[in-house]
């Protein structure tokens, strides 16, 4: 087991206009479960494959422990990877699939067999050891892929969307199992997913990428509560954070013809670049209903009842008029949701409101405005 370090690592595919991964700086602690998350094409898989040695690193270095592995072939990196489609060897039995790496390394047959059987026991695969992958269900194949990784006791596990081929129910179950297994083995794990729920539930820390740039890396809680920028704010959380472009007046944002006061420090920071607009963000649960005459009017368009929760989608008028207004989301009382077409009045909790600079997209409100140039928080709106 070992820590993993990306030091300004850059990967560019031949013929591509811009790098797929752009000067990535990331430190993963020994035994940590780190999730790389982002939309398609953000470079998360490429980062993982570069760590595995399957993509060439154009610039910068990657270290596993103290060893610089930037230009080492995959087999010398001592890491195991779980692929999205599992990449099981179709012509080998489950036992041979799991024992392949050990066999190649010249390990004795009995020792290999013992390790494979131990891993099979952990993963509940004992009765399938003599089957071929073709005769297994999707979930079982996924476990074989996991087994192939754990028998090797490698320095790190790399997982590339290992759950995306499972059905929804199995995905939730396996998600928990993988997280529990990782805690138990204590092996450093880098996990790639596009699903932010997986990212939030599994990772010790989550690293959000966009267009090859690192947006923010932090604990799931902090990503949710203190997103560094508009992108992270909109990406993390389901339903997503409401983001509204607003005009600024003397002491706040103009919303629905009224002013939503913002802290003085925030206003000062926003005014720094002379901008008269900003992006205001609040979570669906960051509001409370108030009586008529208070707060801001909100016209309900659709109500979604999910049993434990209910979400109201609707519009709130900003000073920009109604034209460009997108639907906002509110979490409302599941027992007595508002009616479609109803106009309700809401108040945004000042503690849960975020303001983002219109020019840089960075969060400027309140306490956690990150120190510029801080290691893992480089932001770019390229």
């Amino acid at each position, binding site marked *: 087991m070992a820590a993993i370090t990306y030091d300004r690592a850059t990967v560019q595919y031949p013929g591509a206009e811009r790098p797929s991964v752009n000067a990535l700086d990331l430190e993963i602690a020994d035994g940590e479960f780190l999730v790389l998350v982002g939309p398609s094409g953000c470079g998360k898989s490429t980062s993982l494959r570069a760590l*595995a*040695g*399957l993509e060439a690193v154009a610039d910068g270095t990657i270290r596993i422990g103290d060893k610089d592995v930037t230009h080492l*072939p*995959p*087999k010398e*990196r001592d*890491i*195991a*990877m779980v*692929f*999205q*489609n*599992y*990449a*099981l*060897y*179709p*012509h*080998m039995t489950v036992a041979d699939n799991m024992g*392949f*790496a050990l066999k*190649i*390394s010249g390990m004795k047959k009995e020792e290999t067999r013992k390790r494979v059987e131990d891993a099979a026991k952990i993963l509940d695969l004992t009765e399938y050891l003599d089957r071929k992958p073709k005769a297994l269900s999707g979930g079982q194949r996924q476990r074989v892929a996991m087994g*192939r990784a754990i028998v*090797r006791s490698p320095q790190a596990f790399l997982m590339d969307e290992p759950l995306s081929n499972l059905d929804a129910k199995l995905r939730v179950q396996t998600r928990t199992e993988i997280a529990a297994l990782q805690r138990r083995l204590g092996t450093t794990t880098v996990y790639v997913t596009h699903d932010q729920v997986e990212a939030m539930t599994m990772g010790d820390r989550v690293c959000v990428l966009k267009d090859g740039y690192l947006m923010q890396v932090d604990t799931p809680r902090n990503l949710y509560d203190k997103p560094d920028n508009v992108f992270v704010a909109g990406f993390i959380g389901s339903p997503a954070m409401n983001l509204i472009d607003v005009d600024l007046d003397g002491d706040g944002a103009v919303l629905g013809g009224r002013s939503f006061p913002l802290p003085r420090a925030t206003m000062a920071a926003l005014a720094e670049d002379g901008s008269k607009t900003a992006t205001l963000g609040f979570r669906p649960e960051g509001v409370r209903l108030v009586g008529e005459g208070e707060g801001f009017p909100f016209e309900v368009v659709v109500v979604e009842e999910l049993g434990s929760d209910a979400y109201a989608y609707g519009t709130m008028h900003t000073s920009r008029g109604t034209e460009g207004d997108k639907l906002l989301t509110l979490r409302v009382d599941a027992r007595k949701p508002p009616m479609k077409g109803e106009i309700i009045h809401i108040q945004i909790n000042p503690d849960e409101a975020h303001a983002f600079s219109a020019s840089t997209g960075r969060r400027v409100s309140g306490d956690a405005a990150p120190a510029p140039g801080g290691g893992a928080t480089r932001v770019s709106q390229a």
Partner: protein
Amino acid sequence: MTIKILNAIIAVVGGVLGAIVLYWLLNKLAELLPGRWEDRVKPYLFLLPAVAAISLYLIYPAIQTLIYSFANKNSTAFVGFDNYTSLLKSQNFQNTLFNTLLWIIIVPAAVIVVGLLIATLADRLGPRGEKLSKTLIFLPMAIGAVSAGAIWKFVYAVRPPGQNQIGLFNGIFTGLGGDPVNWLQLSTLRFNSLLLMVMLLWMQAGFAMVLLSAAIKGVPTETLEAARLDGAAEGTIFFRIVVPQIRTTLITVFITVLIGVLKTFDIVYVMTNGRSKTNVIAVDFFNQLFTNRNNGNAAAIVVMLLIIMIPVLVFQVRQFRAEEAAR
């Protein structure tokens, strides 16, 4: 020319129309039958033309050949197993059988190895290089065996010492200071047979390469990457991961080439006509029948060829069924 084209058109149109009319009549015939009998008999009626054709062109000649193989050279009297015993005792036929065995052992294996090698190497070229090299290697497929013979005669050609050598081999050989050699008469260690096998290899390697290349491309990249991460070297990956995954294609190619080898006639006939210990079973058959006019011997040779081929065919059919079942 016009008449030929017209004939061809009439044959095509007439053939198709004739088949339609035939099946229409058979259908009408079946409809004449009462009630359930119509459905019971109809499938057999529809099978009838095909069964008749196979019987007439395949089964009847096979049985007739078997019968001739026990008869004398004019097929006028039965001689029991005399044809077989005299053939198997004869030095020449033993030689033929030995050569055929060599062809069977060497050529399919060599075609697989060369085809696999080219497919693997071409896979590593750029898209244009791959296309070009594959086209070049596939080209001999389009050349008939007799034309190939004409080409390779020039490769192996020999001129008396002192004259300019027009053969490629002798050109190189005399250029290096040697005396011209008549390669096709060089029967030591069956070297001349090997030279003939090279021709079939040259013609078949492209076929093997195309099929194997497609199969190699069908191997999921992830399994190769997984093996790389598992610590396997490139050789290990090839033999333990790639080859097992293209096994069915390998067997298909092997059997196709094997059957081609068993039928090999034209190359040997054109190049040496079986002289200098290069004879193979198909050429021997041809010469027994048309040169020696010995129906009995010719039929016996064919029956032996058939006996050799039956296990191969059974294996091929089984393999095909297993593949279908696995799908």
